[in-house]
């Protein structure tokens, strides 16, 4: 790709006689009679790529015929549809395969939610489809088989609130579909974060953006799923393969090849770089470049078609601007695209300060020469989502993968957990796979679960790995789950950093624990040993009951030597949510606090955080495993976390560095979230074996603290107590769990 200089692009802006404006019928719009385009009143909100509720009345769908700057504009919807449509805003739309109707997401007024509407292009009639009027239904898209796919903040789980994302606190949108006649609405499984901007691939699968957020990850990546909302699979952007933080509004150029907008998650009005993503090895035939050979994230690559546009949240320069969406007109190596583009600093802060809005207009983009040719611009509107108003071929209808024998639960598992590209396991060291449910604060729980930025966790079961490396579990449908390979001490050997979910009746069995994506893996669960020993991970337990009892959390002898393997698994499965005040603090009390009580000395190392510029002590702390609320110098009030939690969770080392502070004294990070095996406190305790049945075999070769402490003030932790601390760490070192929720009191 040639890197054109800014001035060349700027000059191109003034070239009206571009490809799309000529009479040359061989140009990229030569066989296009008209375009359909969405116009929304311009705005400076909804900068976050997952926002969907922005409302300003006055949107309209128009036809531009012919598709040139001097073409005739005809309004298709909705000022002529009736009084109730006069205040309509339209978020997105799709054209039917036969080009005779349009489905769009529209909002009638501030008092209404976004709903789905069908526009009949032959008679101009508009019909709202029968969705829940109190929920938002957006980004609709026609599916083969007379269905419409959408994303919505309606919740699939009866009686449960929809998740709120940790950031922007938006009610998350999840996938659903409905028949074009309004019947048969069904909602897909949900994730903790948003799924957004779906589009259809020629193989019938759906590509969309998923906000991937577990611990340190916070990005919007592209995923595939089948049109029946099963078989979700990563497509592009994960594990360091990507180009920017987030990708959205992907559209297929050719099989295995997509044009997408690459940008930061927020502040860029959902606009950024035009990125040509190739999911497999590329090949060219008859001028069509496709990339569906051995598609996998491992083989994926990308080409920026707009190299000067910032791919992060920096304000774009004059004449560079940002792109809101793109529609491919051909599949040349350098494709021609219908794009929406706005000039200048398309960044919400700069625009806000200047008191102006970005103005997106429609252009024909010649990516080979990086030239835009204006087609339609309205200074008061966002003119976006242009596409040819013409019929297209529908992909094949995929058969449903829902298995009624699963009775509404989901089946997850691996053929061989040792098959992993992310971690090398020692043979035989994986005892089982821990399955953890994730949740956010949507249920009226705390806004944060601790200081470590992890979502709420509940252990819903440990599936034993069989001798062939396989494991399987029935899990509740439609909830996000997170997996860890666990050793015989109950410690995580490897943490898979992603939330997954399955529909009722869906089987999602992988080759391994993130197996080689470039390798062909035969998935045949029936061949595995685990198929005959499927774990039930609370698959039939209602949400409100997926908690531990206070009695079990406080039972030091929940696991005892002499238990059978099954008794042991049954017992440890009772340890669901590791609420610090119920599961951890009682264990410290009496067993540890005799020495670790905050009295400075060898048992309680102290440290200070100092501002070297002013030479003032910002914070002073002494190791302390009691529940004493940490008092703040200045006596304005107590910290609500106990000293034990501050001692184990520590402080934010990145922030210390960032503010150029210094730590003096003896500071250690005693626990690493999601990694109990690598945590100092666990190594110090040196826990004993739990699985398959409890023994006195210790995890590490080092001397256990119960021994090196000389038996003074430190009775040995029981296996149940050690496991609770292990679980607390492997669950993200949260302070709160569902067991703390007021809704469970």
């Amino acid at each position, binding site marked *: 790709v040639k890197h054109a200089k800014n001035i060349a692009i700027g000059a191109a802006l003034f070239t009206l006689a571009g490809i799309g404006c000529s009479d040359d019928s061989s140009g990229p719009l030569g066989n296009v009679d008209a375009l359909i385009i969405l116009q929304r009143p311009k705005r400076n*909100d*909804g*900068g*976050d790529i997952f926002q969907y509720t922005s409302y300003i009345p006055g949107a309209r769908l128009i036809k531009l015929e012919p598709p040139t700057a001097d073409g005739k504009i005809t309004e298709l919807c909705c000022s002529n549809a*009736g009084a*109730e449509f006069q205040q309509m805003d339209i978020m997105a739309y799709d054209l039917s395969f036969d080009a005779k109707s349009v489905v769009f997401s529209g909002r*009638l007024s501030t008092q209404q939610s976004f709903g789905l*509407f069908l526009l009949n292009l032959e008679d101009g009639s508009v*019909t*709202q489809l*029968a969705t*829940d*009027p*109190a929920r938002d239904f957006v980004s609709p898209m026609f599916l083969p088989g007379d269905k419409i796919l959408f994303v919505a903040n309606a919740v699939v789980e009866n*009686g449960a*609130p929809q998740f709120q994302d940790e*950031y922007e*606190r938006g009610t998350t949108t999840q996938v659903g579909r409905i028949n074009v*006649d*309004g*019947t048969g609405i069904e909602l897909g499984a949900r994730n903790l974060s948003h799924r957004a901007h779906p589009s259809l691939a020629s193989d019938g699968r759906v590509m969309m953006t998923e906000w991937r957020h577990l*611990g*340190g*990850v*916070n990005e919007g990546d592209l995923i595939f799923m089948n049109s029946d909302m099963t078989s979700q699979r990563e497509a592009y952007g994960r594990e360091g393969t990507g180009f920017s933080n987030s990708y959205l509004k992907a559209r297929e150029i050719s099989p295995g090849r997509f044009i997408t907008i690459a940008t930061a998650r*927020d*502040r860029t009005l959902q606009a950024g770089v035009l990125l040509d993503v190739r999911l497999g090895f590329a090949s060219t035939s008859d001028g069509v470049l496709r990339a569906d050979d051995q598609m996998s994230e491992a083989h994926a690559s990308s080409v920026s078609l707009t190299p000067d546009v910032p791919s992060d*949240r920096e304000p774009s320069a004059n004449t560079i601007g940002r792109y809101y969406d793109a529609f491919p007109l051909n599949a040349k190596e350098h494709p021609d695209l219908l794009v929406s583009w706005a000039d200048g600093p398309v960044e*919400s*802060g700069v*625009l*806000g*300060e200047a008191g102006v809005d970005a103005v997106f207009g429609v252009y024909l983009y010649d990516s080979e020469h990086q030239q835009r040719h204006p087609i339609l611009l309205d200074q008061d509107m966002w003119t976006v989502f242009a596409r040819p108003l013409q019929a297209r071929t529908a992909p094949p209808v995929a058969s449903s993968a829902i298995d009624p024998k699963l009775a509404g639960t989901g089946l997850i598992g691996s053929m061989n957990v040792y098959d992993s590209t992310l971690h090398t396991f020692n043979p035989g060291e994986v005892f089982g796979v821990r399955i953890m449910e994730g949740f956010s604060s*949507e*249920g*009226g*729980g*705390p*806004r*944060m679960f601790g200081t*470590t*930025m992890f979502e709420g966790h509940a252990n819903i079961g440990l599936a034993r790995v069989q001798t062939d490396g396989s494991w399987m579990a029935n899990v509740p449908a439609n909830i996000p789950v997170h997996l860890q390979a666990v050793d015989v001490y109950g410690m995580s050997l490897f943490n898979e950093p992603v939330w997954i979910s399955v529909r009722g009746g869906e089987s999602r069995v992988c080759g391994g624990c993130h197996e080689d994506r470039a390798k062909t893996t035969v998935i045949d669960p029936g061949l595995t040993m685990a198929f005959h020993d499927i774990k039930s991970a609370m698959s039939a337990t209602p949400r409100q009951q997926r908690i531990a009892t206070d009695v079990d959390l406080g039972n030091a002898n929940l696991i005892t030597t002499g238990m059978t393997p099954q008794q042991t698994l049954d017992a440890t499965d009772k340890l669901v949510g590791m609420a610090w005040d119920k599961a951890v603090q009682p264990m410290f009390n009496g067993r540890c606090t005799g020495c670790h009580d905050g009295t400075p000395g060898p048992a309680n190392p102290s440290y200070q955080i100092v*501002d070297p510029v002013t030479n*003032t002590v*910002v*914070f002073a702390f002494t190791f302390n495993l009691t529940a004493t609320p*940490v008092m*703040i110098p200045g006596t*304005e*009030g*107590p*910290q609500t*976390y106990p000293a034990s939690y501050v001692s184990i969770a520590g*402080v*934010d080392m990145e*922030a210390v560095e*960032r503010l150029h502070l210094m730590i003096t004294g003896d500071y250690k990070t005693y626990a690493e*979230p999601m990694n109990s095996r690598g945590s100092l406190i666990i190594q110090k305790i040196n826990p004993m074996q739990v699985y398959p049945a409890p023994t006195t075999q210790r995890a590490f070769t080092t001397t256990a603290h119960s021994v090196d402490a000389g038996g003074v003030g430190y009775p040995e932790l029981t296996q149940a107590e050690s496991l609770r601390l292990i679980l607390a760490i492997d669950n993200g*070192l949260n302070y709160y769990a569902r067991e703390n929720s007021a*809704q469970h009191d």
Partner: protein
Amino acid sequence: MTMKTMKLAAAFAVLCAASPAFAGKGGSAGLIADAIHSGSTDAIIAEVERTEALMCPDCVQLVTNLLEDNRYAVREVAAWWFAKRPGLNVLMTSQMLDDLKFGDAVHVRNAADYLGGVVSHASIPALTDAMNRGNVSADAKLAIVRAIRVMTNKAGNPILVKGMSDGDAGVRAASAAAWREIQGQVGAVPVVGLLNDGDANVRAQAAQVVGAMGEVNAHGTLEVLVVSDADPVVRRNAAWALGQLGQSASRAALSAATLDKSGLVRNYAKVALTQLH
């Protein structure tokens, strides 16, 4: 308006900072100040979020000021920021509870949004008292109702019931809509009366709530609404509700509604007919 102040030692923010801080990175007080100066809601939200786990004494007053911004989205993200700092939250909650008792309408509004934003279940009695104060504006009442909706706590039901009889139609509509969002809520008896409210939006909200909550006794009123209400949104929601209730007695009304003059109603009625027992 008097801005709140937080006389805090820098240590406050340190303690509230996280062990390995992951997401929500990259912010600073300077960036928040720039965002505030820009006036952009998006920019303010983004920059406040970025200081989620940052020890940032200079952020405290900036974010405190945002709790009194005129925009709900800004107040909400500011409350979220405090919720991430339990020590500060204790202090701010105390001030907000005072505002609920003694503040003017704007302070009550801001306090309610704060207490909802930090999900302070313990504040529900104080919110109830504030709702019962005679001198609270509709905006403030809307915020109180919104706080209960965020907390999804049944202990807030008396607030919603009170709101449903408020003189302001917006408060009545919001209270009815919030009823459905409360966890563990059973039935919608208090909402049924609003099906005959004089305000179309209140009727529309009431219709969707009684349908979603399975309030079967409402089907007769809904059958009247679906064919005769002047507002197409009310007719639409009534059709949807009748489908949810599934009463075969609703067939005639829904059949008539399939011929409704408004494109908002017809498909709802057709689909509802397929849902009748």
